[in-house]
């Protein structure tokens, strides 16, 4: 090749390179912040796309220089390196080599700092699976906290992942506050300076930390962060953590005004939760859990208005349907429920369903000038029925009524006194002061009688009844044990006989 052709070729190359480099510069120009609050440059197309799809590490959270270096150092083999590290982590766990397991997880997080599953899976691994491998509760606590610290690091690198904040709150709530070792864990957690900020020692509590973290999670969600799961559940968490706190301090011997205040706080927060607009399943609209009762009243009023448009129509329709039943169905319906045979039960159920008079049906039978209004009323009732159905279902998921009731009756002075008397009775029993234990248990049970009389709902609803029966049943069992030790008979009639009737002692 002669020098002339060589030069020509070089010039062609340069000529092609210049526009490519310019194009690349335009496309890849990085975003730049503006000076003193002024709007900065959004950068090139690639920078804008990164920002838009939240692919830029700066939009995800803090940048760890180590992580970035390691990612670059693997020269595109990050996936292979991560797979090897996962395999190593599993191997170390199987061989109970905790030091190397923890070190491998650290390395893994550096390779995959924005892969949420790494943080979630491995923090759970440390706090739940590794911690229980240790026999000593102090070692277990150490590993629970290691998992929490691991998660905290994940949160720093992924500030829009609300699920990580939720996980950290859940770990504190569940692992510190509810595990088998909760007494020891809560004691150690109270002493741990890393979690309580400037909170005074008396207010250092795992439940309050959990609550604070659940609130942080909601803050991330509200500013557009990603969250998995139902808002109904995660929005209820702070108030539930407050309930847990109130419950926990009573179990540890704090009563009086402090306990009442905390339960009141829990009740207020539960009410505030009930006033939130929550998405309704299968619909674009929202619901508020507190609206159930007002909606029921509204429905009742609308139904009355519909009835008034043609008085007696509803009954007439029902009578017509009754007349249309077969003899066998009518006989089944007339038989008292407890005496029905299996077939009769089926027939009665069919009959019951077929004699129901729907509002639409009722409205369609109205003629004349009221027909239009009747149809409108029926439509409104149907809409309310739909909403009530959603509300019932949503309230059932979070056990809304029970917790509302619980917060209400726990604030009562009598309830707090009842719990305090039982607590002191348990203390006396532990110290084998049986006479004092008996006196205190009886005082507690008497107070409980008063509470139950004031809140009959506690034993009326099936769900609430079983929780109440379980809660008080254990106290009654302890009282029975005290009497047995004193060689005294169990009283008959017993002051909480109605509770006993619903109590099924666990084996």
């Amino acid at each position, binding site marked *: 090749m002669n020098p002339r052709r060589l030069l020509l070729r070089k010039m062609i190359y340069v000529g092609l390179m210049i526009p490519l480099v310019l194009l690349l510069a335009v496309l890849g120009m990085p975003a730049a912040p503006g000076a003193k609050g002024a709007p900065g440059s959004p950068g090139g197309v690639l920078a804008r796309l990164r920002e838009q799809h939240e692919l830029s590490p700066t939009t995800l959270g803090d940048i760890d*220089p*180590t992580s970035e*270096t*390691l990612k670059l150092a693997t020269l595109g083999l990050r996936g292979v390196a991560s797979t090897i590290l996962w395999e190593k982590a599993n191997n170390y766990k*199987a*061989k*109970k*080599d*905790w*030091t*190397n397991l*923890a*070190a491998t997880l*650290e*390395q893994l997080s*550096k390779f995959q700092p924005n892969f949420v599953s790494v943080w979630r899976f491995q923090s759970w691994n440390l706090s739940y699976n590794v911690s229980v*491998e*240790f*026999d*000593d*509760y102090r*070692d277990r606590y*150490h590993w629970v906290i290691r998992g929490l*610290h691991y998660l905290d690091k994940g949160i720093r690198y992924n500030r829009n992942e609300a699920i990580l904040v939720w996980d950290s709150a859940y770990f504190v709530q569940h692992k510190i506050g509810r595990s*088998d*070792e909760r007494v*020891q864990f809560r004691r150690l957690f109270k*002493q741990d*300076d*890393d979690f309580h900020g400037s909170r005074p020692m008396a207010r250092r509590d795992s439940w309050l930390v959990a609550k604070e973290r659940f609130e942080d999670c909601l803050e991330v969600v509200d500013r557009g962060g990603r969250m998995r799961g139902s808002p109904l559940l995660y929005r209820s968490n702070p108030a539930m953590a407050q309930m847990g706190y109130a419950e926990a301090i009573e179990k540890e011997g704090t009563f009086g005004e402090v306990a009442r205040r905390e339960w009141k706080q829990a009740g207020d927060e539960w009410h505030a939760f009930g006033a939130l607009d929550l998405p309704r399943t299968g619909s674009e609209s929202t619901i508020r859990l507190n609206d159930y009762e007002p909606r029921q009243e509204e429905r009742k009023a609308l139904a009355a208005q519909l009835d008034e448009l043609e008085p007696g129509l509803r009954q007439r329709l029902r009578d017509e349907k009754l007349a249309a039943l077969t003899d066998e169905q009518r006989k089944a319906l007339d038989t008292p429920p407890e005496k029905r045979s299996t077939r009769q039960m089926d027939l009665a159920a069919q009959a019951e369903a077929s004699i129901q008079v729907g509002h639409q049906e009722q409205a369609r039978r109205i003629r004349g000038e009221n027909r239009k209004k009747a149809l409108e009323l029926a439509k409104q009732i149907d809409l309310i029925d739909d909403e009530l159905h959603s509300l019932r279902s949503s309230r059932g998921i979070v056990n809304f009524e029970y917790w509302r009731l619980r917060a209400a009756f726990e604030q009562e002075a009598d309830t707090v006194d009842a719990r305090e008397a039982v607590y002191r009775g348990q203390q006396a029993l532990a110290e084998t002061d049986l006479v004092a234990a008996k006196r205190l248990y009886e005082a507690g049970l008497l107070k409980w009688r008063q509470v139950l009389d004031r809140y009959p709902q506690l034993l009326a609803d099936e769900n609430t009844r079983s929780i109440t029966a379980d809660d008080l049943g254990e106290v009654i069992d302890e009282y029975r044990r005290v009497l047995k030790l004193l060689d005294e008979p169990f009283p008959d009639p017993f002051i909480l006989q109605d509770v006993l009737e619903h109590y099924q002692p666990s084996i």
Partner: protein
Amino acid sequence: MVLETFHAVNFAEWIGPAAKVWLIAVVALLVGFALLRWLFAVLRQGPAAGTLSALNFLWAAAADLLLISPRRTLALAGLTIKESMRRRVVIVFAVFLILVAFAGWFLDPGSNQPARLYLSFVLTTTSYLVLLLAVFLSALSLPADIRNHTIHTVVTKPVRPSEIVLGRVLGFAAVGTVLLGLMAAISYVFVLRGLDHKHDFSAAAREQLAVMWRDARRNDSTQGIAVSTDRVQNHRHTVFFDPAQETVDEQGVRRGAIRTDTENGHEHEIQYVVPAEGEVQFVCSPPENHLLARVPIYGKLRFKDRAGKDADKGVNVGDEWTYRSYIQGGSLAAAIWTFENLRDDQFPDGLPVEMTLGVFRTHKGDIEKGVPGSLSVRNPATGDEAHVRTFASREFQTDLQVIPLEFQTGDGRTINLFRDMVADGKLEVWLRCVAPQQYFGAGQADLYLRARDASFALNFVKGFAGIWLQMVMITGFGVLFSTFLSGPIAILATGGALLGGLFSDFLYQLSQHKVFGGGPIEAMIRLVTQQNVVTELPPTAQTTVAKMLDKAAEQWMWLIWHMLPDFRVLSFSDHVAYGFDISWGLLAMAVCQTLAYVGPAFVLGYVFLKSRELAQ
């Protein structure tokens, strides 16, 4: 430290049989090679001339191997060193420096055993770098010289081929030694600096202490208090301050020195001065007792089952890893270690039994307390057993129980340990779990006698000596392969020998058909067809052929496994990292194994080089 394949190290007992096997193998190899050489010569030159040529070759070989000139060999080694410098071996050192400089980014000093982590890191990094360097240097050198014809400048001089081969091995080994020495020194400083830290006390803790000392000035019987230090490197220590243990001078200045509890594998000493007025001065020592070199005496483990009958193993409590076997509490089950060659002059302060136990609870029991266990000693000759003490377990923690030289048993007997319990240097230590329905887990190396502590620095050097031996062995292989293979192929062969040596256990498992997913062909089929490793392959002709080919491959792998050195024998990283002394016996074994491979590699290398036209 977990020793999954445990064998007691006794160099004196090992060397005899090992040397015998080695000699047989070497003689067989040499005789086989001589016969082949003879056969080849006879086929080429006829019986008489061939035999004569073969004898000449053997004679020359004997002369070349026996009459090696140290001066010429060292000169060649010097050339090799110069060549290595030209090949920028210093780059490896630079990589090492970069790795160490940035290691602090990804090594967590807050780990629960940071010393173990740091030591593992430096030893592993050094080992990989030096071995890679050895592979590339040794395997590329000769082929490059042959390709560039620079070898002729050497072979035309009056040097023997054996000197060329030996000079290369020595030269590369010298380069590696210098590098390794530098790396060891830097690693040592890195570990010490990385782990170094001190603690202080928070304002709240100082306030609590101030109140205690104020009370102590007014009342001599003031109780001590435990306070936590600040969090440094992700841990805190609990320190118990006891005014009763302090000295008070005439001016009312109190002085004390206390040890913290053990956290993250170390403790500190805190010295403090409490003036009558003003700020308390605390001086915290650097971490202590975290860099150890325990000298263990291992016993032989056996078990008794719940009925008190001999058993091969204890119970499996559902662990995937079967290293530890479990003994049932509140039964006759026991884990028994038999120790040999014990002398009373070895243990002037009692028998220090150190153990790391597994604990398995079938019910919660008392969470606040460890599961109680009992330690007894038994005379193997008389069967006389004496209960030493009951202790509370602490799982995965190294627990030291010192058995006194003289102690009282529960039934009032006074036991003299060495007189009553040790027979011909033998003693049995019985471990039982006392709590019913709870279990203790134990593996072979979980209980040992901590005879004494050796120097950590020396142990660190021994750890690097292990890497040095590996490097020498790989250099030997590299030079051997480079005498008859081209550069890239020699690298592949040397790298293969290294990988095979590092994963010799896997190779063995593969050759014995003990790996899930089958041999190489079956594994490839599974990979391509995306089938998992446990499902049976469909019974097709293709599967049958694959399995037959795998069977043949397994035979090869078995042969290769036998021929390759087991590099794990030369690796002492775990010993250093877990704080166990590398015994001289173990080191001597490693040296012998290295020589056992490097010697024949040198001879074969010489033979191959001599067979090539350029050396003749």
